[in-house]
């Protein structure tokens, strides 16, 4: 045992990973800052909202190891509450968005309490069932206006001086919100809490045997994820001046799973790439009509077969191999 004790083997290079993350972040921000000069801002805003949604979802799936199949309830409900707060209560956009996110956080706490004790597929089923209840609530409740949704939501003045009616101002506010959410996810993943979450994912019985009440950690991850998904949904409602049933529909819960898997679950940048890929696809393939779903499905199957770790997951694995660790 003593002879090789002084030869540290296969050390993990956290510094290199952090350098990579920082560089990739700078590139991503640079692209987003100049994007409105080249691409239609509304398109990028939509993609940014979904990217934040996917990052929130990835926090739960990729880092908490929990597959929720009902995340649309947080996106959609936050959208309704935000739209209602802005339109009916006349709150300024920043408070409307925060109210929406807070509602999603509270909903996440309730849903989490019910779901968190279930494992694997049962957890997914409970979240799906709860999301369906939220969907039917949204169809019935007067304040959501059923099929019509809440329309003509005022964008208003952000922080009292940024006029969101200006498309570019709106764009940079959305970018700021996305960046804040993205950095919060990064911080959570790289926090003492994130460490425990990782330990629980790796070996839950061992974590319990050390005295961790693992259900509380999973619940906390669930609530954080729900709140961030709500932030995305609320922002989206202000951007499109609309909160509708689309965002609480189960297919939205499926879409965020696709985005996360396509980009690479458990990676920091994967969900962003996945969201942009899917939103772009939707944009350009929309003219295919009903063939769209089939095409999207086919592309997805090919991607999953070719890049099992997702686009970013494969890229990171390749970079790591090249570094030789």
């Amino acid at each position, binding site marked *: *045992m003593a002879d090789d*004790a*002084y*030869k*540290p*083997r*296969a*050390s*993990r290079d956290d510094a290199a990973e952090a350098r990579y993350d920082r560089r990739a972040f700078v590139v991503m921000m640079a692209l987003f800052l100049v994007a409105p000069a080249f691409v239609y801002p509304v398109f990028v805003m939509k993609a940014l909202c979904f990217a934040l949604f996917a990052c929130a979802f990835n926090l739960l799936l990729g880092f908490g190891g929990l597959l929720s199949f009902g995340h649309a309830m947080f996106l959609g409900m936050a959208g309704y509450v935000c739209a209602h707060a802005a339109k009916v209560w006349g709150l300024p956009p920043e408070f409307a968005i925060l109210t929406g996110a807070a509602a999603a956080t509270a909903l996440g706490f309730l849903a989490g309490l019910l779901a968190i004790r279930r494992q694997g597929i049962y957890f997914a089923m409970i979240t799906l069932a709860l999301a369906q209840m939220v969907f039917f609530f949204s169809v019935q409740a007067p304040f959501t206006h059923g099929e019509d949704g809440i329309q003509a939501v005022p964008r208003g003045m952000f922080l009292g001086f940024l006029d969101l009616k200006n498309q570019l101002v709106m764009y940079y506010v959305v970018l700021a919100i996305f960046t804040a959410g993205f950095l919060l996810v990064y*911080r*959570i993943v*790289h*926090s*003492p*809490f*994130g*460490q*425990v979450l*990782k*330990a629980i994912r*790796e*070996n839950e*019985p*061992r*974590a*319990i*045997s*050390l*005295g*961790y*009440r*693992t259900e509380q*950690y999973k619940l*906390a991850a669930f609530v*954080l994820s729900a709140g961030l998904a709500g932030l995305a949904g609320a922002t989206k409602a202000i951007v499109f001046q609309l909160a509708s049933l689309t965002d609480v529909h189960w297919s939205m819960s499926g879409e965020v799973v696709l985005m996360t898997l396509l980009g690479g679950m458990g990676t920091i940048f994967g969900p962003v790439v996945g969201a942009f890929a899917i939103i772009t696809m939707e944009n350009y393939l929309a003219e295919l009509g009903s063939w769209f779903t089939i095409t999207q499905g086919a592309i997805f199957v090919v991607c999953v077969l070719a890049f099992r770790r997702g686009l970013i997951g494969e890229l990171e694995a390749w970079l790591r191999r090249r570094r030789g660790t």
Partner: protein
Amino acid sequence: MAQDTILETRGLTKEFKGFVAVDRVDLKVARGTIHALIGPNGAGKTTTFNLLTKFLPPTSGTILFKGEDITSDKPADVARRGIIRSFQISAVFPNLTVLENVRIAIQRRRGIGFRFWRSESTLDALNDEALAILERVDLRHFAQTNAVELAYGRKRTLEIATTLAMEPELMLLDEPTSGMGHEDVAMVKDLIKEVAKGRTVLMVEHNMGVVSDICDTITVLQRGAVLTEGPYAQVSADPQVIEAYMGSTEAAAHG
């Protein structure tokens, strides 16, 4: 006065669909001792550990820790009382580094698990303590290695290090030396003897060399029930025990 009892079970029983895996076990573990639980394969040793730590609910019976009834505790609460177990199948956090494995335990003890708004680097404050523990088990040079890449024997020592980092009053070790080479067995044996100072150890062990060298009391289980109990010299001379072990080739190979 009799020795201070830290852990006691009364009529502890576990049935799996009519099969009695643990059968009315009355166990008394004296504070400050190393107590061995031995017996042929399938005797119910691991199941007993699972009952003591509440990973399995007992069918009947009570468990007392320091005189308090802990039978209805949750597993995490048992751990918080100071009873930390290891597992028969090596239980490390594979994709955490060796240092992080130990730090997770220290984090729990200090109650800094929920800080999602702080940076990971705040955990560096725990490094000195973690490295000191790794030094004791001769793993310091592997601090930055992912646990999954350690050789089997080192994984087991890492497990002990993590358990130790909790500063448990009572350590439950399930076959800490199984699957190890001679040198590692000797190392782990000395380690257990050393860490047992100031605490109590209850261990399942197949290696009779280890049992005879460091254990104060030995309880022999057979088909879920206590066969006999006492110091090594007495237990090893017991004809019932010899009889029980004759039927077990596995134990013969070990012992």
